[in-house]
């Protein structure tokens, strides 16, 4: 039995925050879960994927977050407890569904996991999705540690059923990816089947229906507010004259700072875990017991502004500060030191933080940015396209490992926005310029949001080339399947879609499928696409070598070496490919045998044929 399925209340385990959420869903008797993976949320669906069949609930990786949201909503209106998980920018995709599911409501608990990414560890922006609760009217919970990530998940299902509304749990990267002790609770029975009772004048949101539904949503706000006022997750701790308001992971920094500074007696902490609706009465009570307030929240001044507004309406005139004090800004995540030092600044204390070592004499170190792996087929396709289109063409890119093609010496990315954005922006670039355009998109991203944009390109007759980098998996987020992946080896029964058939079905006239590791053929495909007047698509098809290893389809590794007698030091291999398996040793080009996977691309690029397979 999977450890997370054990019916062993009281058992304590060190769990990843995301595993704690998955365990919470299991304890709550979840019947359906759906997701599109995205860092830092991916280990939640991955955990579900590893155990859902054994547990007896339904799980799917959906095509995108909007679809995933609708799938979960479909279950929840049918009386089945459901969960949908996504990263913060996924919520943008899902938001169309979110806004109206809030009107329609649910008949069984529906929990939305939203993972924000302050400091942009693996994202294109650091938007603060607490605003989505304000926008949609849906309650929001914010846990502080692994134990709460599990507990709050269970509680969120109950709150959702009380209010008949989906409930959003908002986490941040540091919570998703921490490991902490989690005590198991009892498991509720899993019930994967419900019944949809027809009620079209509730569920079909024509204006006449939605006018009433909006009224009900506003009424539910009052009910949700009462729950928030009395929630155990909204606590006033201590009775000092100095007030601190905090949420999420920052609560830990505050607790540690108060201890480090030895000011426990002087502080009152208001911790907001049921953070929307914001508990007005509780806040008023807190404001009336303290002399001044520091609001400690990462990213936007959401609580700060709302608390200030409550103070104004209650005619409470004490100072309430947050952003702009000490080291607090709207940028990036906080940490224990930032919080400790800013508390010290605001309350006029001397800071006891240890002094960082003097690093002025440390030499400049070579960068170590993330990079395409040795043998990555994306590198080979980038090389082929660059040989044909050069540096003048515009290269719109998309979200995935291949975004790393932006780094020199490949330098094969000029604009990258969002999922599917390469194709859409290529349409506009084609309409607004006379420059050559080659857009790049991954296979999973193509299914996620590339298809509507490609339809647009076909219909509106935009002239560019789209390269679909099909490596047979969702690589960046941890090798999840997508609609083009045969999941039979994973023991899952799904239908596999052919990207080529989809592209041809959309009416693209020039389509070519090529293995990018065959360099001449890949260059020929790029040349043919360039010569074709109109929209062309190249499908660059080769399995991600990391994934190939996992599914045991890896080619036999036969590493290559550089024959130093033949090498004339053109350095094309290093300067044009920059494969991490290659390095220089006293001016000689070398290949690290332990990293080379024998893709042979460098051997085809070498003008002297000096790169050869090692003889066994």
């Amino acid at each position, binding site marked *: 039995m999977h450890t997370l399925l054990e019916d062993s209340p009281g058992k*304590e*385990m*060190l769990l990843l925050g995301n595993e704690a959420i998955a365990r919470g869903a299991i304890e709550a008797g979840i019947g359906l879960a759906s997701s599109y993976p995205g*860092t*830092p949320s*991916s*280990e939640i669906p991955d955990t579900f994927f590893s155990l859902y069949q054994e547990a007896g609930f339904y799980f799917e990786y959906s095509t995108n977050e909007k679809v995933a949201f609708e799938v979960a909503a479909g279950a929840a209106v049918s009386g089945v407890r459901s969960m949908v998980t996504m990263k913060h920018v996924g919520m943008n995709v899902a938001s169309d569904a979110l806004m109206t599911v809030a009107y329609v409501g649910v008949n069984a608990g529906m929990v939305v996991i939203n993972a924000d990414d302050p400091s942009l*560890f*693996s994202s294109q922006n650091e938007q603060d999705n607490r605003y989505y609760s304000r926008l949609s009217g849906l309650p929001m919970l914010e846990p*502080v*540690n*692994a134990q709460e990530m599990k507990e709050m998940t269970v509680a969120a299902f109950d709150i959702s059923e009380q209010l008949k509304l989906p409930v959003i749990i908002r986490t941040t990267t*540091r*919570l998703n*990816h*921490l*490991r*902490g*002790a989690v005590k198991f609770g009892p498991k509720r029975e899993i019930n994967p089947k419900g019944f949809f009772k027809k009620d079209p004048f509730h569920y079909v949101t024509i204006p006449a229906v939605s006018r009433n539904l909006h009224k009900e949503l506003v009424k539910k706000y009052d009910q949700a507010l009462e729950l928030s006022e009395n929630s155990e997750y909204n606590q006033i701790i201590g009775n000092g004259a100095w007030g601190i308001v905090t949420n999420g*992971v920052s609560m*830990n*920094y505050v*607790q*540690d700072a108060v*201890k480090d500074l030895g000011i426990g007696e002087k502080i009152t902490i208001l911790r907001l875990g049921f953070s929307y609706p914001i508990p007005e009465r509780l806040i008023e009570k807190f404001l009336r017991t303290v002399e001044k307030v520091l609001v400690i929240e990462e990213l936007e001044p959401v609580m700060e502004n709302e608390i200030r507004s409550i103070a104004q309406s209650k005619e409470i005139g004490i100072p309430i500060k947050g952003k702009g004090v000490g080291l607090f800004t709207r940028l990036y995540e906080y940490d*224990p*030191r*930032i919080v400790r030092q800013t508390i010290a600044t605001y309350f006029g204390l001397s800071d006891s*933080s*240890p*002094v*960082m*070592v*003097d*690093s002025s004499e*440390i*030499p*400049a*170190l*070579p*960068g*170590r*940015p*993330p*990079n*395409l*792996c040795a043998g990555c087929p994306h590198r080979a396709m980038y090389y082929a396209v660059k040989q044909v289109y050069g540096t003048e063409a515009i290269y719109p890119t998309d979200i995935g*490992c291949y975004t*790393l093609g932006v780094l*020199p*010496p490949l330098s094969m990315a000029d604009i990258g926005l969002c999922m599917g954005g390469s194709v859409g922006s290529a349409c506009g670039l084609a309409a607004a310029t006379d420059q050559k355009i080659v857009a790049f998109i991954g296979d999973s991203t193509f299914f996620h949001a590339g298809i509507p944009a490609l339809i647009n390109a076909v219909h509106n007759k935009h002239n560019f080339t789209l390269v679909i980098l099909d490596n047979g998996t969702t690589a*960046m*987020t*941890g090798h999840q399947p997508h609609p083009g992946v045969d999941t039979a080896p994973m023991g899952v029964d799904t239908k596999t879609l052919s990207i080529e058939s989809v592209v041809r079905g959309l009416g693209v006239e020039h389509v070519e499928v090529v293995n990018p590791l065959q360099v001449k053929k890949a260059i020929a495909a790029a040349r043919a696409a360039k010569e074709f007047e109109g929209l062309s698509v190249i499908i660059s098809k080769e399995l991600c070598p990391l994934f190939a290893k996992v599914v045991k389809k890896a080619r036999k590794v036969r590493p290559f070496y550089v024959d130093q007698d033949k090498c004339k030091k053109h350095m094309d291999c*290093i*300067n044009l490919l*920059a494969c991490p398996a*290659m*390095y*220089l040793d006293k001016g000689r080009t070398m290949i690290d045998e332990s990293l080379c996977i024998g893709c042979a691309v460098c051997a085809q690029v070498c003008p002297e044929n000096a790169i050869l397979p090692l003889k066994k």
Partner: protein
Amino acid sequence: METKRLVLVGVGGQGNILASRLVGEACVAAGIPAVVSEIHGMAQRGGIVETDVVIGDATSPIVSEGEADVLIGFEPSETLRSLNKCNENTVVITNVKPLPPFTVAIGQGTYPDIDEALALIKARVRSLISLNGDELAEKAGNLLSLNMVMLGALIGSGVIPLGEGALKETIAKSTKQAFLESNLKAFDLGLSAARAG
């Protein structure tokens, strides 16, 4: 309970995520509060991987600049890069085997001289334990057991309140059985190297 803040830094694939998880699990098994922080996703593609372990009476999952009690570097230039995590009381444990990033090959930077790097670190912290972790891992029979060597060195340094036995039990429970023998051997080699100074 005294708080101990650990920073483990390495390059994607060197196994510091597993090492930090094992420390966390050993603490939980021994009834010592611990919280671990990991970085997943884009940062792992051949880039720098930092994990933090906070043991004892603190709940923050991450370690700020200047606040590490122990810095464990799996690659010497990365140890040097993470020196900003240290203060004059930090104990630094580092592998000395270089793994130059590809930027060096394409002429975008110079890899530091190892002896100079070690001297720079040594002059700024309480103590420095340096060892050739890759060599010890090879001696243990598995190149991939570098993380076990580094764990052994951590326990050998005596800085954290965890005994040799507690960590070995966790290794036995939470790592692949096929590698158990070489893992334990690698752990022992790291432990002895650290104790020998």
